[in-house]
């Protein structure tokens, strides 16, 4: 039974971690453009910050 004392908190903590990760992703706009992201992954060139001298 003592196993439960730490198993349950661990289970809850892991679940909460997933929830927080999802909420963070939602807030930071990871789900803004589900179609575009698929194409961006195929992009050969490095991101703009490095190439674009502007």
């Amino acid at each position, binding site marked *: 039974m003592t196993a439960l004392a730490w198993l349950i908190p661990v289970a*809850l903590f892991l*679940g909460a971690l997933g929830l927080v990760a999802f909420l963070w992703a*939602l807030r930071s706009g990871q789900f803004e453009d*589900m179609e*575009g992201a698929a194409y*961006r992954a195929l992009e050969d060139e490095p991101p*703009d910050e490095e190439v674009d001298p502007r």
Partner: protein
Amino acid sequence: MTAHPTELAKQVPVATPATLVLAVDEMHCGACLRSVERAALRVSGVDSARASLAARRLSVTYDANRTGEVDVIAALDRIGFAAAPIETAKQDRGDARQKYLLRRVAVAGFAAMNIMLISIAVWSGEGGDMDPALVSLFRWLSALIALPTVVYAGQPFFISGLAALKGRRLNMDVPISLAIVLATGMSLYQTMLNNEQVYFDAAVTLLFFLLVGRYLDESLRVRARGEAQNLLSLQSGIATVFDKDGTQRRVAAHALQPGDRLLVAAGERIAADGVVHTGKGQIDQSLITGETAPATVRTGDQVYAGTLNLTRALEIEVTAADSATLLAEIGRLMIAAEQGKARYRRLADRAAQIYAPAVHGLGAATFIGWLAFGASWQTALTYAIAVLIITCPCALALAVPAVQIAAASRLFKRGIMVKAPDGLERIAEIDMVVFDKTGTLTLGKPQLIEDEELSDDVLGSAASLAAASRHPYARALVAAAEQRLGSVAPATEVVETPGEGLAQSLRDGMEERVGSASWCGVDSGDSEGAEVWYRRDSEMPVCFRFADAMRPDAPETVRALKRQGFDVALLSGDRRGVVERIAEAAGIDTWHADMKPADKIAWLENRQRQEGKGPGRKVLMAGDGLNDAPALAAAYASISPASAADISQRAADFVFQGIKLAPIVEAIDVGRRAHRMAFQNFGVAALYNAICVPLAMLGFVTPLIAAIVMSTSSILVTLNASRLAAGGRP
């Protein structure tokens, strides 16, 4: 992005950051996405640019002192993307609501899974050797997870339910809120007393499923609304204005002022209402009038925002812009008509109106009954609450949404988009179908009437001249030639005289002409004008006739509708003769010509009301033009082809793809089946309640029974609905 803040501060005293959201048309692939972003970033003063392929929008942050929206739009225009700013007010109300729901879905999902994990352990140990202290601990743990979840994730239902109560109405959210609050409250109470009736799992799982349904519903709407906004913004978009010193400047259409002078190039849409200042040409006014034949305009003629300039650049003096245009006025007419439709009460809410008093009455009866038989008030209250929970509208709340999602996905596979969530309910109740002519019953594009006598040679020469023009008849001529001859080589030295025709000098001093009868020197007298003449020097002129072809299955569709007992009518803004001919060809007996948008509304409202003479008709309006938009909004249910004006698509409950009319029959059919199925689902829910409520009233309900009953009825309802999506006829 790489500029240091200090550097920026040196260049410009005050950097004014600003953001801009643009609708970008034609952005379909990853490569477009990159080029759009790059083009925007290359504009000096732009800090960041992020394009979204799903929304077809580009968000730009820039320094307002160094650049402006017009520069960004011009940069996109240079690489071939039409872009238009979306007004800040309209940008993302829907998005915010969607995220609001999604956050709650996530929280409820997390809580439901964890509570279920604990509950299953408790159920399995029921009556066995589980330590009572451990059971109690588990219940307290569930309470700890459930309470904050209900408070947070239940908000959408509580807010809507309270709003309904304040307005002295009942909607579905009232019993849902009550069930969730009571289930949670009683479970907490029972946990404190260390009793068995603990239902945190049921309350939170219900919340989770309901939120998923709400979210799906909302995302469907947000998507449709976003697309409509993009299109509406692009419709008027950007205009070229002459400044006082004669220089040209590009400005957003909503920033135009009366008195501005616009230059409208051939092929552009006119961005504001105005009068023609200089120039003569033909414009396509179908957006406003529904009339496909182009109209000739000269200096001093009135033109309207949204109409398409076909032939030659026009200079226009603005008389009304932005919200003062006729286009905006029609939009307002439409919104006013839509308000009437908002009075429609959704099926689930109507069910709730009967259901909620019954449930609350039964709960009260249980309480009083047990008290009367001498039970303590705690026991009586416990049983009463058990009744309320067992009748918790799980299945009832799912009955309609589950069917609607299944029906919408079935229609989607057949190219019909359900835009209004309650459209399916309304289309199931209609008893009359009213068509618009141009673009709905017909294809809305002139087509050459094929003639055996037309030689390939003549058709080819005429088409190669016509290829230089944007005129609808010219395009139809080219399309017909391409179909017959394969390809058309455009002539190079063509001169176009707007409103008259095209001419080209041939090598040996001869001349070819394509255009109106007078242009080709023919005295055509009383022709209806749907014709183009071709003459090669002094040879006999040849006549090409055009007609707006009917959709191929129009007569068949009308027959099918009549067979199912619907009345069919045709309302058109077009001329009498044309309407009569089409009505006859399609087999429609009731038709009216020369109807303005307001006439159509009046006709519909007259039919739908029928004062004092029994119930009014319920009309399905099928239309496509901007001129139909108010009628679409006023009708009981409405459907538009995907080729329709954007505002009409926005007004319509359904939008169908393709050139066939059969989707109308299909939509009615699926709507009716969905209606039947929703009632079957209500039946399932009612049956479960009929069996379980007496048990609960007598105090026999254990948590296990409650859990099984609640979930099986919900599953059954969902399974029943999925029959509709599966495709086969039941």
